[in-house]
């Protein structure tokens, strides 16, 4: 499932109860907004940490905000979610989408390997993935949710679009 919404960044942040200083938005090309635990402590999923690190390498003006007291969430259920990506410059979009597509690809590969090793196991279900990003120039917010293969397909389609 994909939800697309045209909105101003300030409205989205207000709705999501996220406060980001203007200077952070001005000086960066990509801002990664972690989810919050009990609406307090920010966290990111452990599985996506290497991908976020690659984003920081490929997009020099990247900031995780808020990063203070950041925690790493490791819930061993087959649900994965990305932080909210605020894409402030257009060149960032294909890099972010491609890296997320590869992250989902790894999730699918791990799932298939487990399925091959234990084909009879009924508990083996394809993981669910939730991806969120906002394109500042286009004023568009995207939320993609579903099983990993479906989300990856949507991701690939979006990657082909401008």
């Amino acid at each position, binding site marked *: 499932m994909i939800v697309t919404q045209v909105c101003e960044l300030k409205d989205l942040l207000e709705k999501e109860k996220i406060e980001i200083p203007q200077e952070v938005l001005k000086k960066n090309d990509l801002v990664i907004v972690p989810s919050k635990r009990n609406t307090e402590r920010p966290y990111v999923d452990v599985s996506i940490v290497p991908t976020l690190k690659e984003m920081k390498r490929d997009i020099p003006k990247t900031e995780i905000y808020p990063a203070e007291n950041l925690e790493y969430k*490791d819930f061993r259920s087959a649900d994965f979610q990305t932080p909210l990506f605020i894409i402030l410059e257009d060149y960032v979009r294909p890099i972010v989408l491609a890296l997320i597509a590869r992250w989902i690809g790894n999730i699918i590969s791990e799932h298939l390997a487990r399925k091959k090793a234990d084909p009879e*196991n009924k508990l083996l279900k394809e993981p669910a993935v939730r991806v969120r990003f906002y394109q500042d120039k286009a004023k568009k917010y995207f939320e993609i949710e579903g099983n990993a293969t479906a989300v990856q397909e949507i991701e690939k389609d979006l990657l082909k679009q401008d």
Partner: protein
Amino acid sequence: MSVFEILSRARLLARKGEVLEAEKKYLQAIGLLEKEANERPSRETKAELWSTKAEYLNFRASFCTENETIDDARNRMMESIRLLLRTSKLSTEYEKHFAPALKSIVANAILVFGCILPEDDTHVYVECPIKLKNMGAGSFGFSIGAFSEKAGCTICGRDILTDPSCTHIVGQSYDGKMCEIAFSGFQLDHVSLTDHPLDPRCKITKLTIPKKEFYEGLPREQIELKERSKLPLVCHLCKEEGIEPSEINAETYFRIQHISSEQ
């Protein structure tokens, strides 16, 4: 008459239903094979002897004489499976050769005699994957939820994500050392029972049910007969529900009944 000819005769008589005559021939063949195995002990002579004994016991489990009970027949069937399992462990070649026979004899044992549900004074133990699924336990697995304070870089020790001075990338090699993440400051959040654990091996493999609770689901006459005759608690789920017990191999067959697979 060679052992092969005697065995062929025994099989023919068994097929015709002349069970007592067939038994004599089987025992004659086993006697000759035992002698051979004693005189020329080798893997081949052992395999011939054990697999023939297994065949005989399997045949012998198909009927009871006057003073025999269903338990005698079940024990013979189990002994037959043990012998075939032992034979198949002699080599990978034997394992491959006897696999179809072993699978078929285990399925037959389950469908004809059922499986013994182990119990002690207070509890009944369910370990059969088919029974577990039937009781709903197979639909859930365990999952933990935890948070870590730090994602440390194994090259420089700094937090890999929040410390800007760490420029290392996970999976890349630096002076022959691979960059990985060492999560630390681990805080367990919860343990949950879920229908989609990340690791599907974290499933329920055993249920320990209070005896009173388990017996409440059985017909009163069945419990009385069982206790009066000191019979084991037997599960006939596969037979009653028409389930092909293909997922139960010989090792599992013994394990779920808390019975040794060794002689």
